[in-house]
């Protein structure tokens, strides 16, 4: 449903317009205001929902909100217990936050691609990209935070020397030290990059396909966007789940002393 203003620029202009964030500042100090705003808004939504459930939490018959919150808590707790052996006060809440937040980010993808930019343009906002997970900054922010936690726990559990030994002497023993180091560093650095790029790639591609569908005549659009949206319900949940599970797995690897 290309609006009049973009018709002049053609399909390319329409796509570029939809994928350009609302930004502010120059160079590195550019801020993607839409990403920051919508992720904070969705984070607030997540926190508000769970906080209201937690406030009314009782061991008796739970209400609807509490039941739903508990369902998610149990789900996350099962995942954590399956792959993480040991005690950590951080890992389960972290996993819950990641799952819910990423899911909410991705969920924004299911809104019609033009609805928020249209509302934005009525309010005088030129560019608006509402899905935070189509912004590399958002996905990398999360994966780098997880990476920091991996390094922190590796050092905390194994000690600085233990962690260094693991980097240098595994998997091929001390005689191949440089090779080991290279392999291990690539392995470690691949973790945050793969986490971030997987989520970004899936959602960016999904959003792009929605935009492409929106370029088609209106009578074809439902036939394509409806199945794609249904398929996307699976994708957004799956991506949130993968991000959470991999975080748990990486952190449990950091906790394991060889």
């Amino acid at each position, binding site marked *: 449903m290309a609006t009049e203003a973009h018709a002049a620029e053609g399909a390319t202009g329409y796509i570029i317009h939809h994928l350009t964030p609302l930004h502010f*500042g120059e*160079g*590195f*100090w*550019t*801020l*993607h205001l839409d*990403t*920051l705003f919508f*992720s*904070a808004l969705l*984070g607030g939504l*997540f*926190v508000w929902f*769970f*906080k209201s*459930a*937690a*406030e009314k*939490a*009782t*061991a*008796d018959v*739970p209400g609807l909100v*509490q039941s739903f*919150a*508990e369902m998610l*808590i*149990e789900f996350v*707790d099962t995942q954590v217990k399956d792959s993480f052996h040991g005690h950590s*006060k*951080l890992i*389960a*809440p*972290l996993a*819950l*936050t990641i799952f819910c*937040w990423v899911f909410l980010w991705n969920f924004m993808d299911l809104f019609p691609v033009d609805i928020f930019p249209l509302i934005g343009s009525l309010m005088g906002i030129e560019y608006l990209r509402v899905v*935070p997970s189509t*912004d*590399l*900054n*958002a996905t*990398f*922010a*999360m994966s*780098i*935070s997880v990476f920091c936690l991996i390094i922190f726990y590796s050092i905390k559990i194994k000690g600085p020397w233990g962690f260094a030994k693991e980097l240098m002497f595994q998997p091929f023993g001390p005689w191949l030290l440089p090779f080991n180091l290279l392999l291990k560093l690539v392995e470690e650095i691949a973790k945050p990059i793969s986490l971030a790029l997987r989520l970004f790639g899936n959602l960016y591609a999904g959003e792009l396909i929605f935009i492409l569908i929106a370029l088609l005549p209106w009578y074809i659009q439902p036939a394509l966007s409806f199945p794609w949206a249904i398929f996307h319900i699976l994708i957004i949940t799956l991506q949130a789940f993968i991000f959470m599970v991999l975080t748990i797995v990486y952190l449990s690897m950091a906790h394991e002393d060889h």
Partner: protein
Amino acid sequence: MSINATLIGQMITFALLVWFTMKYIWPPLFDSLEERRKKIAEGLAAAEKGQEDMILAEKKAKGVLKEAKEQSSEIVSLAQKRANEIVEESKELAKKEGDRLILSAKAQIDQEMQQARESLRQEVAALALSAAEQILGAEIDHGKHQDIISKVSNQLG
């Protein structure tokens, strides 16, 4: 598609969210879950115990009932026996009493018969005496003929 300061902002938001979840969301919800799990386990255990108790009580009740039945049948049989005994006793008593009555009646009859016989004898003796007097035409002296009179009366008896 450039990495920029948004990254830092997002990291701060993320850290805040994780901190908040860890501090205010996870513990109460998880605790309530645990507590409910415990409650349910307790409830199930209590239910099981209750069922066991019920089975035990049923068994006990059956035992008591059986005992009571036995006791009552015992009592009934005893009572029957006692009743029979009483009937027998009274029968015996009645028989004895009857016999006694018959005996005393017989004795009375005998006595009366004796009396009647005695009086009859005396009358007959007197009658014989007076007949003999008339035949002899003289008075028989009672004193003189005492032994004859008694002999006659003895013969009559």
